[in-house]
């Protein structure tokens, strides 16, 4: 005879589980499945962009190499940057967010599950469109920054830059709604008791990043729309011959572009703030300071874009102001570095693979931060910008600040994501190869950058002092690739025959460890109660969460429901009805993909048909359903 508890679980399972079969694969709105898809797809685009980088490093291994044509090289470096920024970093971190946010706040799904599924499909289609353009040798080739007039109709008449403008506009839909979904979820669906001061840092990082996305993407979207109008319909926004201004593009692009660095880095720093307390066996030092630093970073990031434009010829006064802001943004970074270090110093270090990646991150990111300070100094910036020195700098920031934490996060949460543990032994081998390979690849770039080697060149003359450094970078890239490959092998091996993951393998402090690995479709049998920022280490939270298992208002087993709470104090408000699985998100994303392709190929009637299809899908999506009482997205 089943116990009461088992009956509740069976009922929840029935309500929340997707129906079996292939169709359900396309219809799911489960945040955990969508989160995993984001991460796997992000890894796929990371591998593509990595292969692009390896081809470039092969070309640059020796001077005057003729391995690949300049046309291909230009497409490779453009798509390497574009993919790493838009198709790997942000989506992968959104994948972590999608999987972890509802679990960390003790909810059963995101606030808008169908929008969440829609966002994933849009990201997938936009990514395939942009990378797929290689098959027609039509990949964007004006740099990820696509400066006008080079990217305009006169100097890039082929379709390549239309792929860029439309692809990014299409992708921007996914990023924007993903950000809004995170904000609503974190502000409205937190477990009772998780007031603002008890929100884990990872969630603050997602909040800060999401706000930054909401404000940073409009200038990029506007710029790309203007570029497309210039290119396709003879507008002159960026055409100096007709009174347009090419520098306007640079402003719009970098008003997006610099916050975007932090849009990428902040969630990754949030991952670090999750890993450090667990493996230091104590709560994060200076929690409130780190929260303030996270938010300050996002705010200040909107005031530093001109440091990408110090050589453009802007007035001295604005250079001095943007220089000050660019230096200032180091301080929130410093606070976080010291918060993590102090936590480790005053805790008990457990040297897991995840923690190794964090320590590697600390060292690499500090170097990237220090060379970043140098770029706040106008005269020095202008000497080394657009040289390999800046390539070294931002790889220390982005490889150090995003890829290391992502790898650490994979080793930390793989059990939660998949139900299987990764091999720590393979993990440590992978770490050392990645750490050595990364430094061997990018450290010499500082040197040959200072020695005058400009970036974005498909070849270089021998004998200028750059030969040995380039060779070392190319060897380093191979070592780095081997390390990353080892982690991929580790993941595949573990999925097949890894050790089953317990609910809480590491003794973590946040709520995702309170449920099984992988979590059941309904996440928690009862909505938990939170009394501190480390609920898993706090007896009261655990006792109250156990008590909630007998509370009907926390079981929410009568319908497809999760609990809505107040924004500041997370006081319970009312249960809200969540939507079932549906094909509409996929249909909507598909319609918009048709619009994008129609515009791209100048088949405007196809675009119109796609638009019509999208309108019909929206109508069906929003059609009132009698049975539903609450609203859900």
């Amino acid at each position: 005879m089943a116990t009461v508890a088992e009956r509740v679980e069976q009922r929840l399972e029935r309500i929340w589980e997707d129906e079996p079969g292939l169709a359900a694969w396309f219809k799911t709105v489960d945040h955990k499945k969508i989160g995993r898809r984001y991460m796997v797809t992000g890894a796929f685009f990371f591998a593509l962009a990595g292969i692009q980088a390896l081809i470039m490093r092969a070309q640059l291994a020796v001077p005057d190499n003729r391995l690949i044509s300049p046309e291909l090289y230009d497409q490779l470096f453009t798509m390497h940057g574009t993919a790493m920024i838009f198709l790997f970093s942000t989506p992968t971190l959104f994948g972590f967010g999608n999987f972890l946010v509802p679990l960390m706040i003790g909810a059963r799904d995101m606030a808008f599950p169908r929008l969440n599924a829609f966002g994933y499909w849009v990201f997938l289609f936009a990514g395939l469109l942009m990378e797929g353009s290689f098959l027609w040798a039509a990949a964007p080739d004006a740099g990820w920054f696509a400066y006008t007039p080079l990217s305009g109709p006169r100097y890039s008449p082929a379709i390549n830059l239309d792929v860029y403008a439309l692809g990014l506009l299409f992708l921007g839909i996914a990023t924007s709604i993903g950000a809004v979904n995170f904000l609503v979820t974190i502000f409205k669906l937190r477990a009772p008791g998780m007031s603002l001061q008890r929100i884990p840092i990872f969630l603050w990082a997602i909040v800060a990043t999401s706000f930054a996305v909401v404000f940073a993407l409009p200038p990029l979207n506007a710029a790309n729309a203007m570029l497309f109008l210039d290119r396709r319909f003879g507008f002159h926004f960026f055409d100096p011959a007709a009174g347009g201004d090419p520098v306007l593009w640079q402003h719009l692009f970098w008003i997006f572009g610099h916050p975007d660095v932090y849009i990428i880095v902040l969630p990754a720093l949030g991952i670090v703030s999750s890993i450090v307390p667990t493996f230091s066996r104590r709560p994060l030092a200076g929690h409130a300071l780190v929260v303030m630093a996270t938010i300050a970073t996002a705010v200040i990031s909107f005031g530093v874009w001109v440091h990408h434009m110090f050589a453009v010829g802007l007035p001295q006064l604005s250079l001095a102001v943007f220089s000050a802001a660019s230096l200032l943004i180091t301080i929130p970074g410093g606070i976080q570095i010291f918060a993590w270090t102090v936590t480790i110093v005053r805790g008990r270090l457990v040297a897991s693979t995840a923690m190794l990646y964090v320590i590697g991150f600390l060292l690499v990111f500090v170097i990237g931060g220090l060379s970043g300070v140098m770029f706040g100094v106008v005269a020095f910036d202008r000497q080394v910008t657009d040289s390999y020195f800046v390539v070294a700098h931002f790889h220390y920031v982005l490889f150090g600040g995003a890829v290391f934490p992502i790898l650490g996060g994979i080793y930390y949460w793989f059990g939660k994501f998949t139900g299987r543990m990764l091999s720590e032994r393979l993990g440590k081998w992978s770490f050392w190869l990645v750490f050595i390979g990364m430094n061997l690849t990018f450290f010499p770039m500082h040197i040959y950058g200072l020695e005058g080697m400009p970036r974005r060149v498909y070849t270089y003359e021998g004998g200028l002092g750059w030969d040995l450094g380039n060779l070392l970078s190319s060897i380093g890239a191979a070592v780095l690739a081997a390390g990353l490959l080892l982690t991929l092998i580790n993941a595949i091996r573990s999925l097949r025959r890894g050790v089953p993951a317990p609910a809480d393998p590491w003794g973590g402090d946040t709520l995702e460890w309170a449920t099984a690995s992988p979590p059941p479709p309904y996440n928690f049998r009862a909505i938990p109660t939170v009394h501190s920022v480390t609920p898993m280490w706090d007896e009261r939270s655990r006792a109250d969460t156990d008590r909630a298992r007998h509370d009907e208002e926390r079981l929410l087993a009568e319908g497809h429901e999760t609990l809505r709470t107040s924004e500041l104090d997370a006081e319970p408000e009312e249960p809200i009805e969540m939507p079932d699985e549906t094909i509409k998100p996929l249909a909507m994303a598909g319609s918009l993909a048709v619009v994008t392709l129609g515009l791209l190929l100048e088949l405007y009637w196809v675009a119109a048909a796609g638009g019509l299809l999208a309108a019909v899908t929206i109508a069906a999506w929003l059609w009132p359903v009698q049975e539903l009482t609450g609203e859900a997205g």
Partner: protein
Amino acid sequence: MGRPDRAAHRRRGLRPVPLILLAGFGLQLAGCGRSGTPSTLDPHGPGADRIAGIWWFLLWTSVVVFLMVAGLIGYAVWRRRGERVQPRPGGERLIVAGGIVLPAVVLTVVWLVNLNGMSALAYRGQGDLTVQVTGHQYWWEVRYPDEDVVTANELHVPIGRRVRLELTSADVNHSFWVPQLTYKTDLIPGKTNVTWLQADRPGSYDGAYRGQCAEYCGLQHAKMEFLVVAEPPAAYDAWLARQRQSATATVPAGTTAARGLAVLESNSCAACHALRGTSAAGRAGPDLTHFGERRTLGAGTAPNNRGYLGGWIVNSQTLKPGNKMPPQQLGAEELQDVLAYFDSQREEASRGDGG
């Protein structure tokens, strides 16, 4: 003076292998000054010199900060392991000291250094020699407006004198960069940026300084080099005097060189290239009035000698694919005449240099 073969010149510039392997910034960079390396840390003029000074300040500051943070991390890693270690709460004061107070002090000093550097490098002069540089895909047009001289891919400047530069672009964005003399200034269509440079001695890259486009400008961005030739005032004046002459001045009638000039004038060359004093007045490509005297072809793509030049004229696309010059349909004799014309300029120049 015989011009040394470029390749041989650069072989001498190869650095000893173990230097980089020893890696440390200081160790590596202290060994600069080899000929051929256009290093920012081997400055030959007051602008780059000032910036190199800022670099060393920033580097040593960074090294100190890095060693402090890395030392703290190292201490945490080596001392805080094992079951006996008791985690302790707190630590906020160290975060405030290390994460706020320390950077605030350091960054204030850095910002003051920045303001000082900005002010030192801003152009405020008057009455300096002015050179106008216009960026093209993928070459540099160089004008001396007060002297009525136009050339390309080579700036000649007198040693020790400040030169005012007016920079703009005819097509896409480019960036003017001579690492050993001055930092980057962008060339942007519809906008003129003013900067300056000064060389205190002759350069060591083929007797000049190597400059290169530093803003991605399309297919052949990699091959958009230019040279800054810094000469003693007398040599500079002699160069200027030769450049002022028209294309016909030194070509006796009836010679092969004169026939070559006629070929240039009457063929499609004249549609894109100018030869002052003749009817050839194209503006799309580099001015060829004294082209024979220039050191490189295709903005640093190849040395400017008879062999490469012949190949370039017949089909420059094999040397620099994607440049704007189409293959030329010249007869064998016409080609020889053109080469002879530019040879005559080369000879004239070496006579001017004193042999």
